[in-house]
């Protein structure tokens, strides 16, 4: 796992400066704390910061196949690289390193972009072919690792794992993109290719772009979540899941797991324990506030499995204290503080000497574990018989606290009147409605500008043609994978907070073979009434006690408004929420926010809606200050000798041409 960045100009343009590349490396150094490498040609430059996991000694980047050959900077892991290496060897292609990077490079040279289908892993990379002066940017299937790019007026393309690398180049300005920000307050995160920054594109999951001659000559989806009917039987999940876990334990460093105490991470841990050749270490977030705490369940699983367990105890001070840095790493406004404890968890994991962890992310989306799927069933059932559904609604979304009083019939009405069943976004109407509460605090002109863009219309317009033929639950799954999993859960809540400390998270449930299994599986293998993740639970019962395998989901969440107002809150909270600072940012109405702050300070903003609003406003203020304000972070250049310094090689091909 690494950070990557680069600048490529049209032929004959001005040179790429080494100092700019060194600043870009510095901007993503947290992703690769073990060292950096640099390749510099006349009008092309690439940089990589490395987190060494495979072939510690030789796997440095940028990696070039031969002098003057093609070059790659690569962030991620291809877990099946030994099998692919053997395949290359059968073709007489012998590799110089045992790293997965070289396997990917050689496969690309042999097969072109058709090689992507062979890769089982999580990756984002840039592949430079010096002959045609062609740059290809690729992102993995689910969007586990980020990749940003922008095209300058002169045809120069600037790219980087994180947007901050683009800003560090000195050629890209950090300015807010209202549409990207409004996405956050619609579906929780900017929806690629949009980011929260104007003109900065986030490569969508499963997509690639090809730059040549100063323009983007191809944009292609090489993988997408496809729910079209399959003719093949799903078969048993067990062998695929065991294989997926085993693949994700491959590393030249020890691999641990994150253990939330829920079904998915417990199953991942149990399978990892069985497959691991060393004492498995597990890591958990525990909350000082018992309302959010799951430590009892975590201890139960850790004890049962005999892991070396480590707990990070998180309270309000820790959440408020780390919040600005989390926003900086996330590079987007947030509506939840939930990424903060995971940031602290990654920090502790790193301090304990573990740099790779497996987690249970993805099971809820693929095997319909979220309440959102049950809500779809209930709302459809309610159309036939409303009385049956009201009871189901009362069981859904326990974290949707309003006043704290008992749920009334208005709760059911909230679902029943959320929107028409023939809306493609039917499954997500209630989430959109609940999240939109943040928009009530917009400044008037922002309200008008964002409303004019028709955010939901854009989302509907982005859906694939075959979407209409899928079942309501398949539609919900597609939307969940493409609007929440990739943009938010794998981004701000996973990759960004883990890589902030140079920790790589791996996701056994997001093996594309598991996705294929989940689609082939009949609906009742996923959801039966209110019983979810049937196939996953069946597997869990073979390796875990029944009580754990049957556990109902407790959504992971953290305290929202309280950490910023109770006890001894940090001074920057008041400062950033002051009318002057709100006016300077220009996104929220100071008078409206003043009312919210007053309620927060009085401890009355305890509900879901206002908690989300406070986090939304505050994170936007932090985000603006850190990236767009007059005192935005400026990156010093990376110092010292790079581990790899390719200065001539990438130009030799040009000379050959």
């Amino acid at each position, binding site marked *: 796992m690494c950070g990557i960045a680069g600048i490529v100009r049209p032929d004959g343009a001005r040179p790429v400066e080494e100092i700019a590349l060194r600043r870009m490396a510095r901007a993503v150094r947290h992703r690769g704390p073990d060292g950096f490498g640099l390749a510099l040609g006349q009008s092309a430059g690439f940089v990589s910061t490395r987190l060494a996991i495979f072939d510690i000694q030789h796997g440095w980047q940028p990696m070039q196949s031969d002098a003057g050959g093609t070059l790659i900077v690569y962030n991620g892991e291809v877990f099946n690289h030994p099998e692919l290496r053997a395949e290359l060897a059968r073709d007489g292609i012998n590799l110089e390193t045992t790293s997965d990077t070289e396997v990917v490079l050689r496969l690309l040279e042999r097969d072109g972009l058709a090689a992507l289908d062979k890769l089982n892993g999580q990756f984002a990379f840039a592949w430079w072919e010096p002959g045609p002066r062609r740059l290809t940017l690729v992102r993995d299937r689910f969007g586990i690792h980020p990749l940003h790019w922008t095209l300058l007026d002169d045809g120069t393309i600037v790219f980087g794992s994180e947007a901050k690398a683009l800003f560090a180049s000195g050629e890209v300005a950090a300015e807010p993109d209202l549409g990207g920000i409004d996405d956050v307050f619609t579906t929780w995160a900017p929806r690629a290719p949009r980011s929260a920054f104007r003109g900065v594109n986030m490569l969508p999951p499963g997509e690639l772009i090809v730059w040549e001659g100063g323009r983007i000559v191809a944009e292609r989806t090489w993988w997408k979540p496809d729910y079209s009917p399959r003719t093949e039987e799903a078969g048993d999940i067990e062998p695929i899941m065991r294989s997926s876990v085993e693949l994700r334990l491959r590393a030249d460093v020890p691999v641990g797991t994150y253990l939330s105490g829920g079904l998915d991470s417990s199953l991942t841990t149990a399978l990892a324990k069985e497959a691991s050749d060393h004492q498995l270490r597990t890591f958990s977030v525990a909350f000082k506030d018992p309302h959010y705490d799951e430590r009892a369940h975590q201890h139960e699983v850790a004890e049962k499995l005999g892991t070396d367990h480590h707990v990070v105890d998180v309270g309000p001070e820790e959440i408020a204290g780390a919040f600005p840095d989390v926003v900086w790493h996330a590079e987007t406004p947030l509506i939840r503080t939930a990424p903060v404890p995971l940031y602290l968890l990654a920090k502790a994991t790193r301090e304990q000497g573990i740099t790779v962890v497996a987690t249970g992310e993805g099971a809820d989306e693929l095997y319909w574990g979220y309440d959102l799927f049950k809500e779809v069933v209930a709302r459809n059932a309610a159309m036939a018989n409303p009385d049956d559904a009201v009871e189901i609604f009362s069981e859904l979304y326990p974290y949707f606290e309003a006043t704290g*009083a008992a749920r009334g019939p208005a709760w059911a009405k909230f679902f029943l009147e959320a929107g028409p069943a023939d809306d493609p976004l039917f499954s997500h109407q209630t989430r959109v409605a609940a999240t939109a509460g943040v928009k009530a605090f917009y400044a008037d002109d922002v309200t008008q500008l964002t409303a004019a863009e028709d955010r939901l219309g854009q989302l509907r317009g982005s859906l694939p043609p075959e979407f209409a033929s899928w079942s309501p639950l398949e539609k919900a799954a597609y939307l969940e994978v493409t609007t929440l999993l990739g943009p938010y859960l794998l981004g701000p809540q996973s990759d960004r907070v883990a890589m902030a400390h140079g920790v790589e998270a791996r996701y056994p449930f997001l093996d594309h073979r598991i996705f294929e299994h989940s689609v082939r599986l009949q609906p009742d293998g996923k959801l039966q009434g209110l019983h979810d993740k049937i196939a996953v639970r069946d597997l869990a019962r073979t390796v875990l006690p029944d009580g754990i395998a049957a556990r109902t989901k407790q959504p992971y969440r953290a305290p929202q408004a309280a950490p910023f107002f109770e006890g001894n809150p940090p001074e920057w909270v008041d400062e950033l929420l002051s009318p002057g600072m709100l006016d300077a940012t220009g996104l929220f109405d100071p008078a409206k926010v003043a009312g919210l702050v007053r309620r927060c300070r009085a401890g009355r903003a305890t509900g879901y809606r206002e908690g989300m609003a406070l986090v939304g406003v505050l994170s936007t203020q932090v985000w603006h200050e850190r990236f767009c304000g007059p005192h935005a972070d400026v990156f010093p250049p990376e110092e010292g000798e790079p581990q790899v310094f390719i200065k001539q090689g990438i130009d030799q091909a040009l000379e050959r041409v």
Partner: protein
Amino acid sequence: MSNVEQTAGTGTKAEIRAYVEENFLYMHPGMEVSDTDNLMALGVMDSLSFVELVEEVQERYGISVQDVEITEENFGSIGALAAYIEGKKA
């Protein structure tokens, strides 16, 4: 209507107004809302805040709101809601 009933009605209405102002109207600085203004139509409340309002009414006044009673006639405005609550308490 007796004086006593009028006083009670005014009290409930004042409480509901205070609740709406404290919890929702602060998001609309400068907006004046009459007792008969429709809160949803004005944008003072949305579907989620409406859930909060109904929960509050049940909790504060100890009444059980039936789903068929959640109508604009009963919950549409401050005045309508106060009248509904008074009716339920009677």
